[in-house]
């Protein structure tokens, strides 16, 4: 087998192992409660019968290991169980919502990634001049600001004061046409873009600066190549790996940002589903959502890993 395929297979296997361990951790996370899960779900005033029923429904009478494998077996077959509060099948509800969340995240990524790379290059081009300083300043401000602040500021001024766009994503319905959907998510996408943009820009800047300072770039400049061909032939191929890494890390960050943003804009996605059911203490839904979020997060990191292997000959042919 080609060494590169072997390397990738190893990474994927490691990722799967990690995902398996994460499922154990998520399962244990819902077990560590001192006392009785059923009691804490129903509250102090619950009748003994209700408690007994819930314990039976949750399978709390079985030992934890058996419950874990029953749960895992279901998950592997696409059966995530049923929600305690509504009795609905979690998988069918969640797939629809996951689609909505990915729709939102996709547009946020489609706008923020090219913009961040372009601005990062701009910062490198005008290093230590005002565009660069401005970018550093904005970055410092944006990592200090909670996502919901950006969301409410935009909602307040653009949605309510200026009335350019709908302040919430209420207009987002499954049967709406694409333009209505895009109009509904315009503000959330803008917020998510702002949340990841500055960070991505700064990391892109650092990655490219790192490459630009290496000796072979100096050689290329000294032998009289134009700036364009230096960047295209020498800097760009070497900065693919770090930049893809930056992008993937930020997309992973986007996955978490989405949770808060969906709640702010009342967007029917995974994040809102998770938060709703945490406050209702609906454990099966929370476990399922947690697992899916973790899987997406690990998957994006895995892609970053694989891209950096593929794009770097030194990693591709290890000694």
């Amino acid at each position, binding site marked *: 087998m080609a060494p590169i395929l072997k390397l990738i297979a190893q990474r994927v296997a490691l990722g799967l192992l*990690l995902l398996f361990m994460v499922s154990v951790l998520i399962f244990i996370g*819902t077990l560590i409660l001192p006392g009785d899960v059923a009691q804490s779900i129903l509250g102090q005033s619950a009748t003994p019968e209700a408690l007994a029923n819930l314990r039976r429904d949750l399978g709390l009478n079985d030992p934890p290991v058996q419950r874990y494998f029953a749960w895992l077996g279901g998950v592997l077959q696409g059966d995530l169980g049923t929600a305690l509060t509504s009795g609905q099948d979690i998988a069918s509800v969640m797939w629809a919502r996951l689609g909505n969340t990915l729709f939102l995240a996709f547009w946020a990524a489609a706008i923020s990634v090219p913009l961040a790379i372009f601005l990062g290059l701009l910062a490198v081009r005008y290093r230590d001049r005002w565009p660069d300083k401005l970018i550093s300043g904005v970055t410092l*401000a944006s990592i200090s600001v*909670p996502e919901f602040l950006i969301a409410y500021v935009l909602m*307040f001024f653009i949605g*309510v004061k200026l009335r350019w766009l709908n302040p919430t994503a209420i207009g987002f319905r499954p049967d709406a046409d694409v333009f209505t959907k895009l109009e509904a998510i315009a503000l959330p996408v803008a917020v998510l873009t702002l949340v990841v943009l500055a960070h991505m820009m700064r990391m892109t800047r650092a990655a490219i600066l790192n490459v630009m300072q290496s000796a072979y770039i100096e050689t290329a400049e000294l032998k009289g190549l134009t700036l364009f061909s230096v960047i295209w032939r020498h800097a760009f191929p070497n900065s693919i790996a770090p930049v893809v890494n930056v992008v993937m890390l930020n997309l992973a960050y986007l996955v*978490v940002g989405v949770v808060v943003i969906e*709640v702010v804009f009342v967007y029917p996605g995974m994040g809102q589903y998770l938060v709703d059911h945490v406050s209702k203490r609906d454990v099966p839904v*929370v476990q399922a959502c947690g697992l899916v979020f*973790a899987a997406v997060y690990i998957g994006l990191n895995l892609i970053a890993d694989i891209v950096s292997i593929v794009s770097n000959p030194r990693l591709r042919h290890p000694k």
Partner: protein
Amino acid sequence: MIRNIPLAAMVGLMFTGLYFAMAILAPWIAPYGMAEIVGDVWEPSSPEHLLGTDNIGRDLLTRMIYGGRTTIFIATVATLISFCTGSILGFWAAVAGGWVDQLLSRFVDLVMSIPSLILALVILSVMPVTVPVLVVVMGVLDSTRVFRLSRAVAVDITVMDYVEAAKLRGEGYRWVIFREILPNALSPLVAEMGLRFIFMVLFISTLSFLGLGIQPPEADWGGIVKENADGINYGIGAALYPAVAIATLAISVNLVADWVLNRTTSLKGGR
């Protein structure tokens, strides 16, 4: 000493000090009681109510002052927990090496492979949401970051001759960790502390905003945003005040942390 502080750090120190002073002196400087209903719903600002009133007619300035107290208190305690567990375990992993190091490091890798907000939500779905539980959950989840840093710092220190000498002298782990490594690892850790503190402020605010942090009638900044969020749709900006407070606190702590980091890493500034 004062003259050497750059302007940005000075401003940061001033605002940080102001917020901490407000947090400590809250009961004396707040004009009204924390949960006291003193006016109409969402009154605009007036001489009696400088920031106006909130969604059920409480004085917003009072809520903000008490809210800041809760936010800062929780963030501080969680940061301390995160630092104590993270750095001691990190040093221990570095000094002990072998299977202790492997076990701790792999476990930290595992926890860090899940976004901490998601893991916190999973845990809080079964735990009673009280202040001690919140502080411990936040502190423990965040200690993974401190673990990574302090292990990395300590691994470099453990190979130093004086640590070797202490080990040959027959000192135990406790001496090596607290007397040899800790004093030398302190400055990067202190700079990191500022960043962890900001992260905690954002974390507790986010949890409260999602309704899973501080429970009403107690206030914290994230909770005040949540309470007044409905006002946004009517053009009432009450929810923006706490959000701005979080941002200014975070930025000013960041400025201070940046300065500390530059001071400890630059050769000229040195101690």
